[in-house]
């Protein structure tokens, strides 16, 4: 029955026999994805309350994925010295966030805001249906940076206060 429906949907000639109910091109995980899945880098957690830690917590409700990406900022230079992640989701989501933590290390916060989901997706050869995983990773980076900057803004004494100290 399914074959019948599928045939009509695909408009295939009646003589052709579909081996699979739906003509799906075989899709495999790219080796980069498998690598990140088997050897995840930077899995873990930083102390959320550390003033130098920015936490980005994002979710993709459609698949029930949730991604936490944390960055540790060097106080003086403002650069990201360390990053870690925790993701509950599919292999592509895990790999995307893993890649994200690798790419943000050593960069400034402004710089990492330019990381695009398309670059992550390309690196992992994500199929169209998994593109939103890389989008999630990009959003996680942005959220982490936003949190870190908010904390830094709170920490910095205002010019008036500084003058008063002198």
């Amino acid at each position, binding site marked *: 029955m399914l074959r019948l429906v599928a045939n*009509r949907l695909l*408009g295939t000639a009646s003589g052709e026999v579909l081996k699979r109910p739906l003509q799906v091109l075989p899709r495999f995980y790219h080796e980069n994805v498998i690598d990140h899945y088997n050897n995840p880098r930077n899995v873990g957690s930083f102390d959320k309350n550390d003033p130098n830690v920015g936490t980005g917590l*994002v*979710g993709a*409700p459609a698949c*029930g994925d*949730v991604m936490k990406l944390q960055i540790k900022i060097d106080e003086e230079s403002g650069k990201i010295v360390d990053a870690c992640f925790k993701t509950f989701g599919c292999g592509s989501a895990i790999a995307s966030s893993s890649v994200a933590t690798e790419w943000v290390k050593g960069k400034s916060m402004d710089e990492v805001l330019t990381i695009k989901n398309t670059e992550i997706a390309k690196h992992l050869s994500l199929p169209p249906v998994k593109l939103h995983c890389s989008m999630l990773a990009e959003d996680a980076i942005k959220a982490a940076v936003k949190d870190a900057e908010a904390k830094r803004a709170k920490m910095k004494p205002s010019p008036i206060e500084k003058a008063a100290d002198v």
Partner: protein
Amino acid sequence: MYKTKQLWTPLSSVFRGVLPTTCSLASFTANSQFPSLSSHRQSSSRVPPRYGLNFSPYSKFPLLRFCSQSAAKLDSTTKRCWNCVAPGSMPFLYCDSCRSIQPVDLSIDYFQIFGLEKKYEIEVDGLERKYKDWQKKLHPDLVHSKSEKEREYAAEQSARVIDAYRTLRKPLSRAIYILRLEGVDVDEEQTVSDPELLTEIMEIREAVEEAPDSQALNQIQSRMNEKLEETSDSFANAFQKRNFDEAVTCIQKMTYYQRASLCCSCNVIMGSATLRIEEMITTDV
């Protein structure tokens, strides 16, 4: 054979969109047959992409034909079963007069198929019986000896009833569907950043991963089912007040709780599978 199919498929898909409401129980007016005419928001979201959102059923005919007179005329001629054309047969998915399966009419929504009011809260218990009743009439196995056309109708019609049954049976899918009927599509790819919800979900997922045994997992799962029920009630509330933003938020929450519940089941299965394997390894054969 293929050539006639080529010709047939587009025509039938065209007519499917039009043949309609004679087949439905709802009180559709004649005008609703012609989506391009009616001003009310056609449930274009019900129509799968392959039919196109702006299908003009009579694209083959000059537009001038679209007038109420021809509408009435066509109305009287389309109020028939394709097979027996018994006067006033009014077939709904299936013609009782000649016992033939009708082509799928996408303007009939899932609630109508099950004879339910279009409300979120429904009697789930009655669904199974109605579903089986439908399959007794529509199942492809019953039409082996019939024409290819009718076999195709059977395949598509019963597939649609299966979809309807599956969708209406579970609260989450029902919620998403009923919102879609209102023209509100839950954007699957929109990122959620509500910190409270996400922190909660994160903690739950971590608990699921670190649960020591099935008992702990079952506890988490029953908590999740409770939350699902609560949020389902919130959805019903929001939907009734037509607060669609709130309704979408409820759906997002339900998705997370359902996912967590599923992970519990998976881990229980994995846990017991591991135990079985260990048993097998350690048992002297």
